[in-house]
């Protein structure tokens, strides 16, 4: 792929978003006769080589994203390729990159040069920002999936969990309850005497809530756009297990505590490693070691205790649960069995399949897109498009340990129920 035609006037900047429009010519293998000219939106720019007036561009998005620069669209975006291309751009010095209050603007400027302004920025914002920036694994295997399966997911999610219901009905008359990661909103409005505000990162799920008349918004549970102490209580039901680093899980809890008033309660539930239905786990795909390290990072408990066992020895497909599983085990020696057991116990990072029936998949173009991008597979036998959802299942005591650094909350209750770990916190100051 060649990139050229870099007219500086094609650099545009709507709001604070960085949008560089570049014409690219693709020498398509399929269509060798005609070059396909497309526009791309540049997503990642590093300052490598910028002292030589070269910019390194790591990935670009298709023009559709550019024309529709909303977050919803980005969730469905596929990266065209992780190629590195060099833009020979003598006028690059006109483009100033400025990091101010963590906002970036690429705009023509009087200020010196990229290298100068970039080196003057930073100021230790990296660590705090990286907690808030959504890792690829969550975008691809959580947000994208829920956007694609939203109607089907919602149609199958109506059972209200008694523990959550009793928490909600215990709230005093006139309470304001905040639901972070409300999904299809099945808990919103459950207590008629209270007011509910829900948020979720999936616009498709939020639309379902809104159509049902709930007060909702699109927001990230790791970075709630709420004033401190406004809510009377908060819940986060089956959300934290979709966050892929320990720091992000801890930040999400801190956010829940932050947004409730002093004395307010927070209920958090997450999937447990200890599943009551053990056959369920055999249908899950443990994440390969390299992905755990690459995506989840060294901060995760799993990555700290690497197992020497290769992935192939772990039952990873649904077929494995129907008997082939046993065969595999009988062929391995005792040592391997023990290692495998240990491995499964330590295993906390999984892909959990979601089967979207063909008749539902056809409704949304998202599935076709996902199949093309390799984010979903077809299972003709089941007549479904299979999506993988990323899960970090929680071990015993893990929720509690995440709250240890939070000084202004105490644990009111914690329990295991229906394969979930649950904790109720009270904000003390």
């Amino acid at each position, binding site marked *: 792929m060649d990139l050229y035609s870099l007219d500086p006037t094609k650099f545009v900047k709507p709001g604070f978003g960085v949008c560089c429009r570049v014409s690219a010519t693709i020498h398509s293998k399929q269509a060798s006769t005609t070059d396909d000219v497309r526009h791309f939106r540049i997503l990642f720019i590093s300052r490598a080589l910028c002292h030589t007036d070269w910019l390194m561009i790591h990935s670009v998005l298709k023009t559709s994203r550019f024309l529709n620069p909303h977050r919803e669209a980005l969730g469905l975006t596929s990266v065209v390729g992780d190629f590195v291309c060099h833009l020979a751009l003598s006028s690059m010095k006109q483009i100033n990159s400025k990091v101010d209050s963590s906002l970036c603007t690429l705009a023509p400027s009087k200020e010196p040069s990229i290298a100068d302004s970039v080196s003057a920025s930073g100021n230790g914002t990296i660590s705090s920002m990286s907690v808030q920036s959504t890792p690829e694994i969550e975008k691809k295997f959580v947000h994208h999936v829920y956007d694609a399966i939203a109607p089907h997911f919602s149609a199958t999610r109506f059972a209200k969990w008694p523990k959550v219901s009793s928490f909600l009905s215990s709230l005093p008359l006139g309470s*304001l309850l905040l639901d972070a990661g409300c999904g299809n909103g099945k808990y919103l409005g459950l207590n008629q005497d209270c007011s509910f505000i829900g948020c979720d990162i999936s616009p498709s799920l939020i639309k379902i809530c809104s159509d049902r008349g709930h007060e909702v918004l699109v927001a990230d549970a790791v970075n709630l756009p709420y004033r401190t102490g406004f809510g009377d209580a908060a819940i986060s039901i089956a959300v934290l297990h979709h966050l892929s680093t320990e720091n992000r899980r801890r930040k999400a809890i801190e956010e829940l505590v932050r947004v409730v008033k002093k004395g307010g309660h927070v209920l958090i539930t997450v999937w447990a490693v200890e599943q009551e239905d053990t056959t369920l786990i055999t249908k899950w795909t443990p994440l390969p070691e390299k992905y755990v390290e690459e995506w989840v990072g060294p901060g995760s408990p799993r990555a700290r205790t690497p197992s020497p066992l290769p992935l192939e020895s772990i039952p990873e497909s649904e077929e494995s649960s129907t008997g082939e599983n046993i065969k595999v085990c009988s062929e391995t020696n005792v040592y391997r069995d023990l290692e495998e057991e240990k491995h499964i116990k330590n295993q906390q990072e999984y892909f959990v399949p979601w089967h979207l029936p063909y008749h539902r998949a056809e409704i949304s173009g998202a599935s076709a897109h996902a199949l093309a991008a390799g984010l979903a597979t077809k299972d003709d036998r089941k007549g479904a498009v299979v999506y993988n959802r990323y899960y970090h299942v929680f071990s015993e005591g893990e929720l509690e340990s995440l709250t240890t650094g939070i000084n202004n909350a105490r644990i009111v209750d914690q329990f295991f129920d229906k394969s979930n770990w649950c904790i109720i916190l009270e904000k003390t100051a």
Partner: protein
Amino acid sequence: MRLLTHNMLSSNIKGVVNGFPLRIEAEKVAEKSVEMNREFLKKMFQKVHWKAFVDASRAMGYTELPEKADSSMLNSDEFLNRFHHALLELHLEEGALVCPETGRRFPVNKGIPNMLLPQEEVLLSIIIC
């Protein structure tokens, strides 16, 4: 989006010191009547930032709220009706919420505010640093 929600929302852009209140750009406002809950209103009165609430209601075209309010006014049915109407019955259907510090616009479409920060903003600040 109700004004109750607006009164809670704050710009969550990293580095923003005071992201509250978000300025409302109203393109389309709807009214949906709901039953009044006095207890809820009395509780909410303690939380609501009154000036932000009055400014927001005016941005939505509703001018019946007094400039200043104190809890003794909660005994007045007329006041409660207006408070109730502005807090829970006015909906911003189309428009935007604007960060008071950065000017960043968060769109509101079909009554749903989108408070996500484009990943470019987050990612670039990491990568460029």
